[in-house]
């Protein structure tokens, strides 16, 4: 039995029955990760020592039967925008290449308390700015299904790693599709929770109003177990929700008969790759077969979502990235800087990639005097309309179904020339974050040998409902069980 092929649930069963130890599980994950990452480049940093220490502690806990949970002893890795004490955290940027946080993000602490084992940090688009992982300052991650293709972004490293069995689950982050789209490209399950459901303290911020930390795993149940451990109010995050955290695993088995599924017509307009559309249509029939009612709905302001998303992203990101100035941490360039302004200019010139620079400058522009009303304020108002669109739709249906991307994974370098083209590929995933609603990304088929993902979108705090529907789908299908042919030297 190859321990790296186990889901979280399967591994947990073996661990509690002492048929497997966390140390064995962790060693296997590390070995596979070190071996395959030569091809994949999903990891920026490995934390072997820490992992083995945590694994030993987990084993002691398992031996004592001391508050053992579904994640105790389970190896995972985190997207490199999550602060991990003592473990380098870079956001895949040169400006943080040697930054070692002195504290853990709340979610990292919670997973540590749950007994999970951190094996490393995942590659991403620099500061989350990108949809392909090609904007990493270090190297692009490869899609395990086709090494010439992108894994999606910005949580590309996390999706690729989970797909290839390098760790049982991953902790990613979704600001505008960054979990869902790579999950779709790599054939894994990923959740963008309700904004505020999972605390952001320790998450290196991109868009403070949209950023949502979430799990990626092989199946819905794994994602539910992770969400269970990380959700809930944190007094250090003023935007974290007070709402009680339900027992996600308990509600998952309920049948979905009679639940209403909405198909937003604007999300199925022209421009979707035929294979992708076919897979989605098949999924819709699948849900019908499970007894769900299918309704067409409209999200009338969909065509504005991309503009709202990017405009607000530019604005908030430009402020969030102002702290990278060479003074208190990170890169400090310009050895011979004559004055502090030179230090700032040189550090940021050397430390940020072109996409980051582009977005920071545009952010300053849309916030600047004379433009604030026309751009930023206007976008915030249209954002309200996006929220209202979803609220109205959820008055008619229980969840929405949509693609996560109009295409399957594209080739490395294909979309790099024109930033606007890259932005346009986000069209299906960008409306949820400004609206704050949760979305679950699930594998739903293949097109030309490449995975196709779909997302279930629900109203605020409906993760349990999304898990229920997703679990029912995964019980009736096996797309999510398929693994990339990355072993055995296949290119």
């Amino acid at each position: 039995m190859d321990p790296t092929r186990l889901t979280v649930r399967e591994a947990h069963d073996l661990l509690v029955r002492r048929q497997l130890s966390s140390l064995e599980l962790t060693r296997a994950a590390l070995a596979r990760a070190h071996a395959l990452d030569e091809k994949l480049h999903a990891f920026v940093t490995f934390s072997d020592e820490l992992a083995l220490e945590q694994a030993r502690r987990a084993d002691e806990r398992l031996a004592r039967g001391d508050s053992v949970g579904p994640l105790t002893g389970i190896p995972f890795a985190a997207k490199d925008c999550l602060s991990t004490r003592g473990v380098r955290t870079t956001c895949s940027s040169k400006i943080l290449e040697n930054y070692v946080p002195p504290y853990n993000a709340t979610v990292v602490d919670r997973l540590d308390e749950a007994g999970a084992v951190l094996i490393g940090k995942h590659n991403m688009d620099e500061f989350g700015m990108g949809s392909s992982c090609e904007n990493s300052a270090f190297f692009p991650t490869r899609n395990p299904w086709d090494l010439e293709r992108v894994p999606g972004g910005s949580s590309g490293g996390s999706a690729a790693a989970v797909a290839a069995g390098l760790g049982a689950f991953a902790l990613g982050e979704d600001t505008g599709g960054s979990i869902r789209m790579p999950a779709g490209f790599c054939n894994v399950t990923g959740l963008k929770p309700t904004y505020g459901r999972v605390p952001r303290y320790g998450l290196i911020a991109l868009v403070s109003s949209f950023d949502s930390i979430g799990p990626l795993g092989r199946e819905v149940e794994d994602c539910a177990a992770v969400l269970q451990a990380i959700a809930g109010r944190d007094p250090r995050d003023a935007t974290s929700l007070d709402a009680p955290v339900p027992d996600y695993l308990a509600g998952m088995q309920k049948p979905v008969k009679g639940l209403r599924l909405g198909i937003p017509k604007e999300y199925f307009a022209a421009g979707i790759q035929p294979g992708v559309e076919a897979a989605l249509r098949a999924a819709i029939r699948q849900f019908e077969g499970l007894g769900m009612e299918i309704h067409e709905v409209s999200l009338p302001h969909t065509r504005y979502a991309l503009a709202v998303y990017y405009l607000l992203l530019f604005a908030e990101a430009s402020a969030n990235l102002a702290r990278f100035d060479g003074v208190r941490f990170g890169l400090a360039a310009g050895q011979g800087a004559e004055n502090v302004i030179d230090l700032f200019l040189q550090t940021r010139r050397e430390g940020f990639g072109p996409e980051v620079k582009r977005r920071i400058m545009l952010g300053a522009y849309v916030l600047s005097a004379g433009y604030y009303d026309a751009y930023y304020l206007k976008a915030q108002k249209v954002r309200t309309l996006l929220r209202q669109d979803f609220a109205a739709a959820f008055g008619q249906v229980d969840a929405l179904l949509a693609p996560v991307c109009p295409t399957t994974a594209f080739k490395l370098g294909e979309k790099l020339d024109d930033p606007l083209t890259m932005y346009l590929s986000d069209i299906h995933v960008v409306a949820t974050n400004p609206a704050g609603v949760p979305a679950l990304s699930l594998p739903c088929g293949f097109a030309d040998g490449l995975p196709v993902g779909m997302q279930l979108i629900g109203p605020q705090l409906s993760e349990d409902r999304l898990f229920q529907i997703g679990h029912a789908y995964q019980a009736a299908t096996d797309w999510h069980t398929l693994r990339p042919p990355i072993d055995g030297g296949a290119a």
Partner: protein
Amino acid sequence: MAEPKPKAAGSIDTEMVKHVASLVRLGLDEDEARRFSGQFAEILDYFRLLNAVDTEDVPPASEQPAVRNVTRPDEVRPSLPRDEFLSNVPHAEGPFVRVPNVFDEE
């Protein structure tokens, strides 16, 4: 420098780019400024489609967050040990953080 005036779409010039670059302390050379200016024009032009939306009586979403009235009690908590902070500081001088010459007040 005079405050930049709103430009017609498609004419974000290099002067504008240099201005915003300096606002966010990004050192750019002439070539970069020119390259960015073309890209900016296209992107900002795309945003104009928001003008078509009637937002007359629509409140901005930033004024309607899900959570309100979050504060914390006035209690002192342990601070970060100084050496942990200094370990990431590029140029420390004893217990201080050192920066090169500082001129004006912002």
